[in-house]
Each structure stands twice: as structure tokens, then as C-alpha cells.
């Protein structure tokens, strides 16, 4: 295992603030590292020159004593599913209109940029946030398939694959992902980084290629929960361009990180009834150790069982695929062969669902949301594995459904409910592969999840471990 030496976003901000490092040096480091590790496939496109120009400008303003913003000078990666001012957005797909996203930054990216963050590049995504990569198919050769920095014979997981790889590899300390069924939390867990799916509507998603309007979320990925809190604080708040964005905001997520979880009631669901068949042998012990640590920190641990688990996962699949087919149906009818085989083979399944199925899924959503709200009357946080599996070997990428691995990632349930869910690293298997735990709060209780994750990370160093990659 590596030494706990990884720099967090907060470390980098301190170094910039005290003059140990300039933004130009930091961006140059990131560019060098990204170039050295290009084989990982973390970036779809980089904006090296533009990033250096912005860094120089920020350095000059900082030197002149100007207010440069809370994220000033820090390079970040932005998932290729989000539009930015820097250039076209492909969504990792051949089919997206060439002018999609021509309006530039959506609210989330614009707010990070206004705070001084520098977009180093667009990070690789599974096609349209949905499909598995298609390795070796020359038709799709322009879309890299990220390799996991912890074991390059394995995938990162998706779909926010490149952001997870870039953070794990130490190219950037933070970035943006999207999550419609675990796309922030699964790659975070598989790459040993920290990722938050915020409460539905808390971070606006204008400028994001839609997959399922009901289940799509934008969220931060970083080294630590503290880093995620800072990014969330920057991005949260209503945007008139996203009609589903909530009229909430102004919460001090960083201030909520008090370091104490004494008396916090944590409902634990180990999920062994669901993923037992494919679970990694080391996962239960690692998860139990993490729960024990929360108890040592003063939390009250209570066993719970999430209500209607498998039914709500089915409802999530019916909902997201139906909405994806509604959005992409015309293109699928006309350009079938331009979609990745896994994407068309997945979205196409929505043809088998009926309008009544879709409505029934939304009825179930209301029922379970009530049940979960009642559960949160008795507990403050749910702790559960992010997944009971580890990163998938490269050659099995396209067999997620058949192998049962898709259902051993316990993320989709929360996309239907909208609750905030944070994935934090909790240890490594015997093969040195990272494992994650989800900390789920009540809706708009993002601060609770971040507080517990931060308290855990103050007494552990799993999130600071570096993968076995060469250092320049």
C-alpha cells in the first residue's frame, strides 16, 4: 500500500495562499502529470494553454493583493457530460449535436470558475452517462476508456470515470461528476476518492446532457469530504435555467464539519441480502471496521433495513431508461450504429416498459420517500457499502448486468429518492483495491453526511493513500 501523502484540495489552497506554490506551478504540475499518465485515459480533451493563461492571471491578481476567490488557481477536471465555455461537448458520444452546449458553462461550472477554479480539461465519461465503454472498437476510438490508477488492468467504473481517475492519479485534487444511478459514487469507491451525490435539485444541472431528468444529479468529487463540502458550498443554489433546481442554498457546509459525531444515530444496512453472490470476500470486514470506527467516535449504531430496496431499484431503472429513450429515441431510430453497443442495448430496453409502468414507478417513489422520511425520524444517517464489489477487470466491462455486478453497487436507490449520498474510502482489499462506504443523509441534509464523512476521515487515512504510479 502507498504512503498517506496525497494532497487534498485544502492542502493546495493553503500552499497557494501562503505563497509556497503559484497557480502557474500547480497547473504546470497537473499538465505534466496528465501527460505522463495519458495512458490512463482520464481526459477527453485538455485546455493546457488556456489553463496556464488563467493561472498566470490569477497569480498576478493574487500578487497585487486582489480578492481572487475561494478556489483561486486550482485546476479541476469537468466531466465531458457538462457544457463549458472551453469548447464543444460530446457526452462521450458520436451522436450529440455538434452545437450541444454552445451556450457554455452551466451554473455549476460557472460558479466554480467564478470562485477561481481553472478547468484543466474535460474528463472521460461513459457514453451519455449510460453505456459501458467499447474497448478496441475503432468506430469509437476517439473516446478513451479510463484505466484504474490502483490497477491498470481494471476499469474505474462509470460513468464519471475520468474525474475519478484524474483525482486518484494525482493529476487534479477535485472535479465534477454526474450521477443518475451511482455514476459519482461507484467510480469514487473503485478509485479510492471521495464523491458526493448531493440532494436532488441542490446543484443545478443546466448545461448537463440529460439521461434521466428524475434521477440526474451533478456533484463534487475530490480527495476528502472537506474538499467536497467546499465545492458544494460553491455550487449549491437555485438556477432559473434548471426548473428542477431547489430554492435552497446559503448553507455553510464547511462550518458543519465540527469533527464530532458524538450521539449521531447511524442506521447501518450491510446489504448482504442483495449482493452476497458476487461480493468481494474482504468487503464485509472492511465495512464492519468502518462502522466500528464510527461507533468509537461516539455515534450510536442501529441496524436498519432499507424499505422496498429491490422494487425501488427496479423503479429507478424503469424511470431512467424510459426518460433516456424519450430524449435519445429519435437519434436511436436514425443513427442506431453510432451509439455504443452497450448504450443502445441498455436504453433500448425501455421499449419494453409501458406508460403505466413509468407511472407506477413514480407512485412507488412517493411511497418509499415517505418511508425513508419516517426512517430519518429515528436515525440521522444511513451507512451502507457503496458496493460489495471492487473495480471490474477491463475485459468484463460489458458484462455488468449478466455478471450481477451492476446490482452489487448500492447507489441507484438514492437517485430515486433524492437524498444526499457521500462515498468515502474505507480501506483496501488484499489486492490493494479500494472499497467505499456510503453515508446518506435526509433530503437537504448534505451537511450531515459531510460531517460524518469528515469526522471519519480525520481519524483515518484511506483517502490519502496514493496508488502505485510512478512519481516524476
Amino acid at each position, binding site marked *: 500500500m502507498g504512503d498517506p501523502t496525497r494532497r487534498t484540495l485544502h492542502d493546495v489552497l493553503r500552499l497557494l495562499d501562503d505563497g509556497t506554490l503559484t497557480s502557474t506551478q500547480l497547473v504546470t504540475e497537473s499538465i505534466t502529470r496528465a501527460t505522463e499518465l495519458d495512458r490512463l485515459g482520464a481526459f477527453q480533451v485538455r485546455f493546457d494553454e488556456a489553463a496556464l493563461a488563467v493561472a498566470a492571471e490569477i497569480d498576478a491578481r493574487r500578487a497585487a493583493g486582489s480578492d481572487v476567490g475561494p478556489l483561486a488557481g486550482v485546476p479541476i477536471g469537468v466531466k465531458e457530460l457538462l457544457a463549458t465555455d472551453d469548447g464543444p461537448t460530446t457526452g462521450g458520444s458520436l451522436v450529440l449535436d455538434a452545437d450541444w452546449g454552445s451556450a457554455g458553462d452551466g451554473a455549476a461550472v460557472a460558479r466554480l470558475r467564478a470562485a477561481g477554479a481553472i478547468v484543466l480539461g474535460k474528463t472521460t465519461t461513459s457514453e451519455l452517462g449510460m453505456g459501458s465503454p467499447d474497448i478496441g472498437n475503432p468506430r469509437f476510438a476517439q473516446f478513451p476508456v479510463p484505466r484504474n490508477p490502483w490497477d491498470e488492468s481494471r476499469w474505474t467504473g462509470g460513468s464519471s470515470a475520468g474525474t475519478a481517475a484524474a483525482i486518484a492519479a494525482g493529476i487534479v485534487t477535485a472535479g465534477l461528476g454526474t450521477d443518475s444511478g451511482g455514476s459519482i459514487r461507484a467510480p469514487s469507491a473503485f478509485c479510492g476518492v471521495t464523491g458526493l451525490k448531493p440532494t436532488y435539485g441542490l446543484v443545478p444541472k443546466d448545461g448537463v446532457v440529460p439521461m434521466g431528468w428524475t434521477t440526474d444529479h451533478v456533484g463534487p468529487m475530490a480527495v476528502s469530504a472537506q474538499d467536497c463540502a467546499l465545492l458544494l458550498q460553491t455550487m449549491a443554489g437555485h438556477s432559473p435555467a434548471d426548473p428542477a433546481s431547489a*430554492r435552497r442554498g446559503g448553507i455553510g457546509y464547511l462550518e458543519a464539519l465540527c469533527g464530532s459525531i458524538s450521539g449521531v444515530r447511524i442506521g447501518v444496512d450491510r446489504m448482504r441480502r442483495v449482493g452476497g453472490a458476487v461480493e468481494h470476500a474482504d468487503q464485509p470486514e472492511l465495512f464492519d471496521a468502518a462502522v466500528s470506527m464510527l461507533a468509537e467516535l461516539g455515534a450510536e449504531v442501529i441496524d436498519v433495513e432499507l424499505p422496498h430496496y429491490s422494487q425501488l431499484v427496479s423503479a429507478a*431503472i424503469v424511470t431512467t431508461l424510459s426518460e433516456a429513450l424519450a430524449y435519445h429515441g429519435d437519434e436511436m431510430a436514425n443513427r*442506431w450504429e453510432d451509439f455504443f453497443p452497450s448504450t443502445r442495448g441498455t436504453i433500448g430496453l425501455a*421499449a419494453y416498459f409501458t406508460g403505466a409502468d413509468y407511472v407506477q414507478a413514480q*407512485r412507488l417513489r412517493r411511497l418509499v420517500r415517505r418511508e425513508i422520511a419516517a426512517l430519518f425520524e429515528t436515525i440521522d444517517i444511513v451507512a451502507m457499502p457503496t458496493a460489495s464489489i471492487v473495480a471490474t477487470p477491463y475485459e468484463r466491462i460489458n458484462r455488468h448486468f449478466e455478471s450481477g455486478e451492476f446490482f452489487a453497487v448500492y447507489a441507484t436507490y438514492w437517485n430515486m429518492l433524492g437524498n444526499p449520498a457521500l462515498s468515502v474510502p474505507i480501506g483496501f482489499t488484499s489486492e490493494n483495491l479500494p472499497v467505499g462506504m456510503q453515508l446518506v443523509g435526509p433530503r437537504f441534509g448534505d451537511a450531515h453526511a459531510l460531517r460524518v464523512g469528515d469526522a471519519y476521515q480525520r481519524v483515518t487515512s484511506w483517502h490519502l493513500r496514493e496508488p502505485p504510479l510512478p512519481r516524476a
Partner: protein
Amino acid sequence: VTLSDEEVAAAALARSRLYPDTPQERDRLTRSYSACRQMADDLWRESLGDTAPLLLPIDG
């Protein structure tokens, strides 16, 4: 008239204007029909009484 799952699946794909371009892909998609219906049928396992659908929130 009783249709096979394969026939129903093919009709559903055609209704959505989805035409897999190889027999292998068409077979793979139509073979998934029963698993998808099982998943959808799971939603109807119990009565939801008067529960109304919770649709996408608009304007927060």
C-alpha cells in the same frame, strides 16, 4: 392469439423505431424482454392504494 415473448419484444422495439442492425444484437435485445418485464412487474407486486405518482419537481 398468443404471441411469443420474441414476437412481443420485436413489436415493442419496432413501435419505438429501434431496429438492431445485426441478428445477434436483435437476439440479445429480444432475449432481455422477459427480464425487463419481470423487473417492471415487480413494481406491481403490491397495491399502492391511493398513492399518487411523485413526479419531477418543477421550480424547486
